[in-house]
């Protein structure tokens, strides 16, 4: 079992142009900074990115957008990014807006081997357009399909060489769901340890889901909205 790779460039070495990627994170919290930088260096394009947000100008997925490497974003919220807006309005970029819970659950379904789920979000709105519906207990639900991603790229707090992952605080967000959903899952971690050093009770994603793992470097962890209170 050899899951450990040398670094981000090795982890993404075979990702081709046109690939469908899942990228973990909520806003800029818990994003795979090292792999995004490697994808920018690699220069692959025509990517479809499934990610709750599209980064900001100059950081996160914003770096891929700036280099015009993204063909389509599948996200729930894409504000805070002027370059995204420019590409969308000029027709260079496609966007599929998905309710946040539906986005999460379509990732979850993939990781649990379920082809589709019935969800209430978006019934009676344009999100329901063209979707199959079914009634349960007098309520109408939408049939939502599991995502089918070529690669899932996630960021964890700690991981071991067998691919077991632990996330920290709200940097967990979409990361475990996407880790479980990729045909190939790449995990970058802040701290990579040997088997036995993580308590099996604390594992959020078991290593069976993870194919490649490495310890990332130079995390910037940019804060989008720095809010503080004064000491009394």
């Amino acid at each position, binding site marked *: 079992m050899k899951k450990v790779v040398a670094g981000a460039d090795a982890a993404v070495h075979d990702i081709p142009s046109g690939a469908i990627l899942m990228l973990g994170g*909520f*806003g*800029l*919290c*818990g994003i795979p900074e090292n792999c995004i930088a490697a994808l920018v260096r690699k220069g692959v394009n025509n990517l479809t990115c499934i990610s*709750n947000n599209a980064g900001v100008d100059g950081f996160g997925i914003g770096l891929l957008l700036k280099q015009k490497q993204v063909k389509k974003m599948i*996200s*729930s*919220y*894409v*504000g805070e990014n002027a370059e995204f*807006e420019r590409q969308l*309005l000029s027709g260079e970029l496609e966007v599929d*807006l998905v*309710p*946040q*819970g*539906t*986005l*999460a*659950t379509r*990732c*979850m379904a993939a990781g649990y081997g379920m082809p589709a789920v019935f*969800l*209430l*979000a*978006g*019934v*009676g*709105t*344009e*999100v329901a357009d063209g979707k199959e519906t079914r009634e349960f207990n007098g309520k109408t639900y939408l049939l939502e399909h599991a995502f089918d991603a070529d690669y899932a790229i996630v960021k964890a*707090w700690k991981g071991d060489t067998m691919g077991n992952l632990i*996330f*920290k*605080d*709200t*940097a*967990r*967000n*979409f*990361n*475990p*769901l996407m880790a479980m959903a990729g045909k190939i899952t790449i995990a970058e971690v802040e701290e990579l340890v040997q088997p036995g050093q993580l308590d099996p009770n604390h594992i*959020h994603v078991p290593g069976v889901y993870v194919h490649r793992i490495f310890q990332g470097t130079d995390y910037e*962890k*940019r*804060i*989008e*909205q*720095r*809010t*503080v*209170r*004064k*000491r009394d």
Partner: protein
Amino acid sequence: MGLNKEQIAKRIAMELRDGFYVNLGIGIPTLVANYIPDGVNVVLQSENGLLGMGPFPFEGEEDPDLINAGKQTITTLPGSAFFDSAMSFGMIRAGKVDLTVLGAMEVAENGDIANWKIPKKMVKGMGGAMDLVAAAKNIIVAMQHTNPKGESKLLPRCSLPLTGVGCVKKIVSDLGVFDVTSDGFVCIEYAPGVTIDEIIAKTAGRLTISPSVKEMAV
């Protein structure tokens, strides 16, 4: 005259009950956390994966791994719990969250809500709003009664793309408190300094004034 944003938040806080799990949206709803009545313990849910959201951190103690759904740095409280995004919306969908407070661009007299998109302008996305309004047991909208052009936001039918259908139970606007019923909007309280005539003039949807209408205590 009418309520300012802080007063709207304060009035909504009076709807909180001890033991509630509450999701507060971005904007005025966030301010509700500042006015939780004494003796009422609520647990705030942040849909990016936290129950038990605490106040903003002290300067220098911000943690980039700990944010709320508005991407603001926050803290935890004793008894907080983290979870992933699927579980977060799972607990919302399963009706475990007692109250959702959010803003709106328009609310219709049947409880439809529009708050995510203005066609031909930039579309930022719905985030978690559609999931929340589809599932929450109780939804209170916090908003201005009229838009910047002075047009009513309480309408017979929403003109903007919908976020959810038939889901809003109550509105607290700068002018008053309104239940959303099968008979349309019912004004149950008016803001200090606001007349019933003004409320009638600024409400485009079907409106009834409750026989027991009273001045709001804020």
